[in-house]
């Protein structure tokens, strides 16, 4: 009886989903726990950072009570978890706005930039890595290696500044700092329905192609820069994964069958390369979603990285905690996603 139940695919799927949901919940609470502890450890008094240091003792006592700071720690943590689960990360000290609302404004900027950069990185890095792996030692391999090496060794801020100077300052091919020209900034605010907060998507949905083109001209340089860095990493990893696969016996089998080299590489080897490559791409994407602080600063990009950094400088703990939680959730989400993809491409990982 129980056997037939266990064998039913529906039950299995439901069980697996429950398992995934439970592990997500636990990871999330673990994440909250860590940020909670950090907030207790840093030498910033939450009450003083809200009231300023000229507050009276009575004011301080009242605020402590309001924030629940007199409660035992476990109860404070409970309240924190309960509020976080409802999307309440507290009030930003600087703006008096809910942290979640601020993040909802800053995160899409990072998401847009990181996604575009990752698309660049994969679209260029994977073919470059494959090319290098199939002709090791050739001039193509040398060029890929050199380009990758430059991506590793050049300081980001230097590349960013030089890029701005050349393409914006001298040539005028691209837009300057910011996500849009100042004129469009207002228009975007008032004339475009913000469905995703990502300008490229929202303007496209609204059919505002003038604004879309302007957004492209602004994002292309930072996305190109981050994409270049991500390409450097992805091409190097692809090269080494591909070299490894091309040495395997099943590759010889495919050749023995008379399959053309194109198919041997892009079908037989590539499917196997994808298994480890998924993790590499997910990690690189996650690190970009964390917010590339330097790039965001240079390009005046109002993203998560500068949000968290600014909050940190201003002792704005609720904002720092909220931002950290979002970063953590990005990692959890991408981890889950790469797990799913991993199982899709590698039958051995399915159980």
């Amino acid at each position, binding site marked *: 009886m129980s056997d037939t139940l266990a064998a039913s695919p529906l039950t299995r799927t439901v069980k697996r989903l429950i398992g995934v949901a439970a592990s997500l919940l636990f990871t999330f609470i673990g994440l909250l726990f860590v940020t909670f502890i950090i907030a207790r450890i840093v030498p910033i008094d939450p009450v003083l950072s809200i009231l300023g240091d000229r507050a009276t003792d009575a004011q301080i006592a009242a605020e402590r009570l309001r924030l629940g700071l007199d409660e035992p720690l476990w109860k404070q943590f409970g309240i924190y978890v309960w509020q976080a689960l409802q999307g309440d990360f507290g009030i930003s000290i600087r703006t008096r706005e809910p942290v979640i609302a601020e993040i909802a404004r800053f995160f899409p900027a990072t998401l847009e930039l990181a996604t575009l950069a990752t698309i660049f990185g994969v679209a260029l890095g994977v073919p470059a890595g494959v090319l290098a792996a199939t002709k090791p030692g050739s001039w193509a391999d040398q060029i890929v290696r050199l380009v990758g090496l430059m991506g590793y060794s050049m300081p980001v801020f230097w590349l960013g500044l030089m890029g701005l100077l050349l393409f914006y300052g001298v040539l005028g091919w691209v837009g300057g700092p910011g996500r849009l020209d100042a004129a469009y900034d207002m228009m975007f605010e008032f004339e475009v329905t913000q469905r995703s907060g990502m300008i490229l998507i929202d303007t496209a949905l609204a059919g505002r192609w003038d604004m879309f083109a302007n957004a492209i001209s602004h994002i292309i340089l930072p996305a190109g820069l981050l994409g270049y860095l991500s390409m450097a990493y992805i091409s190097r990893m692809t090269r080494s994964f591909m070299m490894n696969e091309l040495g395997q016996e099943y590759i010889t089998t495919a050749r*023995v*069958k008379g399959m053309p080299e194109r198919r041997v590489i892009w079908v037989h080897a590539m499917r196997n390369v994808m298994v480890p490559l998924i993790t590499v791409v997910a990690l690189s994407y996650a690190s970009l979603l964390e917010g590339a602080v330097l790039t965001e600063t240079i390009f005046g990009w109002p993203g998560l990285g500068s949000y968290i950094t600014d909050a940190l400088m201003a002792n704005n703990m609720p904002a720092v905690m909220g931002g950290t939680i979002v970063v953590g959730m990005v990692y959890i989400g991408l981890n889950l996603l790469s797990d799913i993809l991993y199982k899709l491409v590698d*039958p051995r990982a399915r159980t």
Partner: protein
Amino acid sequence: MSLLSVKNLRVSFDTEAGLVEAVRGVSFELGRERLGIVGESGSGKTMTGRAVLRLIRPPGRIEADRMAFDGQDLMRATEREMRALRGPRIAMVMQDPKYSLNPVMKVGAQLMEGLRQRDRLSRMEAHDKAIAALEAVQIRDPGRVMEAYPHELSGGMGQRVMIAMMLIPNPDLLIADEPTSALDVTVQAEVLAILDGLVRNRGMGLIFISHDLRLVARFCDRVLVMYKGKVVEELAAQDLMQAKHPYTQGLLNCLPRIGGPRQPLPGLDRNADWAV
């Protein structure tokens, strides 16, 4: 006319440690018969087999005074011409199905690949042919095996799939490189019997590579004995017991005889002079 003619074949690798000469002047002729190649591990058997398909990866290099298959010069053939030979004319069963089947592709897709890509058969036709090929290697549940991934198969099953896959286009020459060495002893005989039956029925040429001299003698008409990249003796299978070369005699003596007196195995006698 001979199917395959090899004269003075050499395979060498330019490595950092210097030039490694894996095959050093091997010559043989092969008709639609069964030729065995024996020798201890590292003697150059695999490289000889792969050189025929010109499937030795850089830094490996193939040289030969002559290497011709069915009248076609293999040394001069373009890569495109070689591809046309690989599969439908010359095929190879590799040693270990655990590594020689693509781990992330379904067995069915791997079996049908040649039919779909090269012969441009429809899915249905390719599927039917693949099923028939699996039945020919005595797989009882071909439909299920088609849907399986390689890691879900046992070694014996995997090697049958390999044999089926290589025999689908009906090649004229099959190179079997230690096709049972990676298998459990219990299934070795089964797989060998299947291979033997198919090769005999279809009248194809066979190069059977093994380190097991007796096995080779049972299977083949003729045997080449290799040592350090050279052929040290060539003899008809039935003359095996009259082998003159001390290395061949050594290989013969190395094998334990089932039911024979239990003595410690004699060490293999080697002499560098044999391979100069």
